[in-house]
């Protein structure tokens, strides 16, 4: 039935607000466009490694500050304009420029792009960033065509294998294969439709009713009914995300490490994972995930121990019940996890008042104004230990020790050194109990069993359509 | 009742109605007997709630749901009780018609008067829309609606009360019924209008030879308009007879009391003068005594009055009264 099928319908939870990843940070923009419409110099693979895409190859200077890219030849944008070093320079200068609304503006502001010749560019980085190649494979680093850059949100123009077909706002975006792409013959899927279904129950219904062929990151709750169903394949993938119970370290009495440790000890990660993600998660003890360079298991550093938690609270001289607000953004993991955590905290004498907020409110109130005690949030950026070194970050964490450590990590050119230092950093954060680190979420993809080429792991959120195909049963 | 003569137009025998009420079934009408010949006019008077309207509705077969009927109603000798609704429908508006008390509400506010007057014509005579319209104009003109042709497409609210009552009369007369029932057709109207409408009905009845059953609670209206009169009280006809005879020799204590209680026009105020009154009030249906309904209020009540409904006693030529104490005053 699926033989010779060349169309696919993919489900997505949220609709992208526009199709320009340089003007918005919603991951849904990348999910639709990255590697499909737009391309980057490097490509991030399912296992987190980086391979050539628009760049055929590159050299990195030993001090990690100079990158030389050799660009792929004969590449054109959808509108016929050629892809060349000028386009790269334009894209990166624009991303770091004054008028930039790129969320990674700071990264690009540190870069100086030099055109060597038509097909060679050199990037000079002011700071050391070991993850730059990975970063250049992300959606914020797409190469745009100068004349069409400003209209990308509605009329995306890239070098990728797909062009925008139709966008019926609120419902779906469809992409159609671009016949003039350099490897057009390898494309199996001629037409891909992304359908936006925010409601978890509707997601399940859509899958069961066959309205969508695949749904990446469906709500874990609904997984059980697909597992035993022969019509579907269920992929469970790791991620680089860290779901944490963030603690406002700047607030009393949370500035006392004993109180934070008490909170961490009060929490049974297993139960939280069960409640928040239906068991789909790996416990973490620090702000780092298994599989990443230099990971160390710190989950036993401060294990679940309500007795100890109560003791720590008493030591800190906290009067129980201690009343704290627990701010929850709209994501299901937060709302569901919040209930579980509140129940666990209650057992050690902490009354967590649940406060459900919208995303916008979370951003302005919790993130912007740092007006919160506790909040549950998943940090999906792959390499973001640096946030602990930012003095004005919403966590309110200040540690000279960590700052120094982080500086060393950044400047460590050799992976082995970095791995060691990263281990130290993880332990430090765990000991300081900066947050109650909960788990590394796993994503569930449910798909028609005949669909091939879906990503097993998701270091970043994308749907690589060119890799998809239908099997002939 | 001579057997060889043609049956009267309408003959009602021993008609009783039982109504379901909150306090159980109530005998709203008891043992009603009367007959009406073609061209004859009959009046029905009595106080509010005495059963006048029920009688009229029973004759039209339009009693409220749940009402139980006993006895017999014959039109032209044919028994009507027990007939299916379709048979009644053929008679209503055709052989017998009715004018209601409230001209303000008896007309459908959202239909033109032309349509409403033409409706029975189309229904019973099968006239085309155009023919029925022409006929409606004639009817409306006959009842005194000026420039009827122009006003055919007007709605009821554009007419005054008197005019509306004329329209309902036109509607009732449309098919030239044999029997016209008018249930308090003038109560809602001014005296001046009342006079006009009564005169109009009188003229039409005479002109077309219809039989008329006129219902009113106003003695004077009945006295001036009909040949025979029935006086109702508490669901029974307590007295009946030719109008003149009845009014000149009031027999039943209720009729007498009713008559005496009326103030007289032009008498002027006489200090110290009181109107004779009937003590008490009309009994409620569900509490009607098994005997004479007037028993409690009647100055002549004796124990026997409560025993059974008194039989109709002749007091004159065709004049009877249901009272066991007619003789002793």
């Amino acid at each position, binding site marked *: 039935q699926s033989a010779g099928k060349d169309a696919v319908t993919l489900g997505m939870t949220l*609709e992208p*607000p*526009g199709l320009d990843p340089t*003007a*918005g*940070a*919603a991951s849904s923009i990348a999910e639709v466009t990255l590697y499909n419409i737009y391309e980057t110099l490097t490509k991030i693979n399912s296992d987190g490694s980086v391979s050539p895409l628009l760049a055929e190859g590159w050299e990195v200077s030993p001090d990690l500050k100079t990158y030389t890219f050799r660009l792929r030849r004969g590449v054109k944008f959808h509108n016929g304009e050629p892809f060349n070093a000028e386009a790269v320079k334009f894209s990166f200068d624009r991303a770091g420029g*004054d*008028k930039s*609304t*790129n*969320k*990674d*503006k*700071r990264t690009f502001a540190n870069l100086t792009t030099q055109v060597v010749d038509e097909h060679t560019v050199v990037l000079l980085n002011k700071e050391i960033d070991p993850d730059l190649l990975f970063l250049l494979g992300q959606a914020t680093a797409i190469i745009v065509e100068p004349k069409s850059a400003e209209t990308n*949100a509605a009329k995306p123009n890239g070098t990728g294998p797909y062009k925008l077909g*139709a966008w*019926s*706002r*609120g*419902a*779906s975006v469809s992409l159609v294969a671009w016949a003039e792409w350099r490897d057009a013959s390898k494309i199996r899927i001629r037409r891909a439709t992304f*359908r936006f279904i*925010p*409601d978890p*129950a*509707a997601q399940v*219904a*859509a899958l*069961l*009713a*066959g309205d969508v062929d695949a749904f990446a990151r469906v709500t874990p709750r609904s997984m059980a009914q697909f597992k035993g169903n022969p019509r579907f394949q269920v992929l469970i993938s790791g991620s680089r995300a860290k779901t944490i119970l963030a603690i406002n370290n700047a607030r009393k009495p949370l500035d006392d490490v004993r109180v934070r440790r008490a909170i961490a000890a009060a929490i049974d990660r297993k139960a939280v994972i069960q409640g928040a993600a239906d068991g789909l998660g790996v416990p973490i003890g620090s702000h780092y995930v298994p599989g990443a360079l230099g990971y160390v298991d710190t989950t036993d550093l401060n294990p679940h121990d309500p007795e100890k938690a109560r003791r720590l609270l008493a030591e800190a001289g906290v009067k129980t019940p201690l009343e704290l607000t627990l701010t929850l953004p*709209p994501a299901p993991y937060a709302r569901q996890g919040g209930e579980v955590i509140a129940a666990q905290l209650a057992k050690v004498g902490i009354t967590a008042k649940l406060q459900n907020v*919208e995303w*916008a*409110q979370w*951003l*302005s*109130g919790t993130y912007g104004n740092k007006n919160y005690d506790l909040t549950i949030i998943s940090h999906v950026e792959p390499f973001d230990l640096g946030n602990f070194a930012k003095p004005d970050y919403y966590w309110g964490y200040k540690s000279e020790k960590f700052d120094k450590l982080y500086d060393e990590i950044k400047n460590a050119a050799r992976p082995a050194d970095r791995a060691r230092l990263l281990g130290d950093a993880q332990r430090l954060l765990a000991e300081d109990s900066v947050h109650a680190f909960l788990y590394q979420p796993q994503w569930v993809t449910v798909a028609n069993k005949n669909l091939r080429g879906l990503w097993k792991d998701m270091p970043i959120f994308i749907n690589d359509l060119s890799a998809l195909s239908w099997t002939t049963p | 009742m001579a057997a060889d003569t043609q049956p009267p137009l309408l003959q009602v025998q021993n008609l009783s109605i039982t109504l379901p009420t909150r306090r159980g079934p109530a005998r709203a009408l008891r043992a009603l007997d009367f007959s009406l010949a073609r061209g004859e006019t009959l009046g029905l008077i009595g106080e509010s709630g005495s059963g006048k309207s029920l009688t009229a509705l029973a004759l*039209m077969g*339009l009693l409220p749901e749940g009402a139980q009927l006993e006895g017999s109603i014959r039109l032209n000798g044919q028994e009507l009780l027990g007939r299916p609704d379709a048979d009644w*429908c053929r*008679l*209503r508006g*055709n052989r017998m018609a009715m004018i*209601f008390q*409230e001209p303000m*509400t*008896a*007309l*459908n*506010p*959202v239909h033109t008067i032309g349509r409403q007057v033409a*409706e*029975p014509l189309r*229904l*019973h005579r099968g006239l085309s829309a155009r023919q029925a319209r022409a006929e409606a104009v004639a009817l409306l003109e006959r009842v005194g609606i000026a420039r009827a042709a122009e006003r055919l497409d007007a*709605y009821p*609210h554009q007419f005054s009360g008197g005019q509306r009552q004329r329209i309902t009369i036109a509607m*009732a007369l449309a098919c030239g019924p044999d029997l016209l029932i008018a249930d308090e057709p003038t109560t809602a109207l001014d005296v001046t209008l009342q006079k006009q409408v009564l005169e109009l009905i009188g003229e039409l009845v005479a002109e077309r030879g219809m039989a008329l059953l006129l219902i009113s609670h106003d003695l004077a209206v009945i006295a001036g308009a009909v040949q025979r009169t029935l006086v109702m009280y508490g669901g029974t006809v307590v007295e009946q007879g030719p109008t003149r005879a009845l009014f000149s020799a009031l027999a039943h204590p209720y009729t007498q009391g009713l008559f005496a209680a009326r103030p007289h026009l032009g008498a002027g105020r006489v200090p110290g003068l009181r109107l004779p009154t009937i003590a008490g009030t009309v009994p409620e249906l569900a509490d009607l005594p098994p005997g004479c309904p007037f028993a409690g209020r009647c100055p002549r009540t004796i124990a026997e009055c409560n025993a059974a409904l008194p039989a109709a006693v002749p007091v004159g030529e065709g004049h009877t009264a249901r009272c066991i104490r007619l003789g002793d005053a």
Partner: protein
Amino acid sequence: MALFLLKRLAALAATLLAASIVVFLVLEILPGNAAQVLLGPDAAPEAVAELARKLGLDQSAWQRYWHWIAGLLTGDMGLSHAYGTPVGELIAERLLLTVPLALLAMVLAACIALAAGVYAASRHNRLGDVGVMALAQLGIAIPNFWFAILLILLFSVQLQWFSAGGFPGWTQASGGGFWPALQALLLPAISLAVVQGAILARITRSAVLDVLREDFVRTARAKGLSRRAALWRHVLRNAMIPVVTVMGLQFANLLAGTIVVENVFYLPGLGRLIFQSIANRDLVVVRNCVMLLAAMVVLVNFVVDLLYAAIDPRVQVAGP
């Protein structure tokens, strides 16, 4: 008639003006802004500030209000913060779903209601009446989103007759077409119509019963019309008067109901757009959508008033 219209239109305009002020002020208090939402927590603050400037979020409230109203009057609703496209287009697309959905639901509701209400009234107090009214009570009591879920379970998941949601669009080009689109709207419309229909059925029944008691119905019967003929010719039109009023009032609830139902069936309608835009702080869109909904409600009630005059000759020129 002209005066009546003029008066009503003036009231309408005043209502909408007041609505615009209230809507604008309420939305002003909303914490958070579109730029931050668009760029997310990891964005550089400079980028957020720049985006805010681009979106015009740095202007004073008064300036923005004025721009908005001036734009509205010239038919320009501005650009959506989130989508970057003209709000007018955005709303127009959504209206193509919400309006047909609401109308379809209304028509369904009216059909159910009239049939059930008239039937029940004509079998007053008998088994049919009691049965239909019991169903109506049930229809009112069931939350419409729950009913929607049950419909999906039965018709989409079990029987697979309808898709579980989504909207293919009215044109072939968007992958839909008239019939597929109508099919997609059917289940949502039914789940909306059941509650409204149940309410209307009850109103219809009691309206018909009220009219049945009117003197003119007795007059009609006295003319020789059968029960049924009297019902059709004399009762229905009079009974429609209160029914139409309630329908007008219900319309607001119906529109509100679409918000929920659009969520269940993930339909890209106006309700979802509002919901989503509030979350995104895309206030330009929210403002205009809310105004539009208010205008629709007001307009429908205006139409109801006109319908009134059409049904009831007594309310012509004078008007209220």
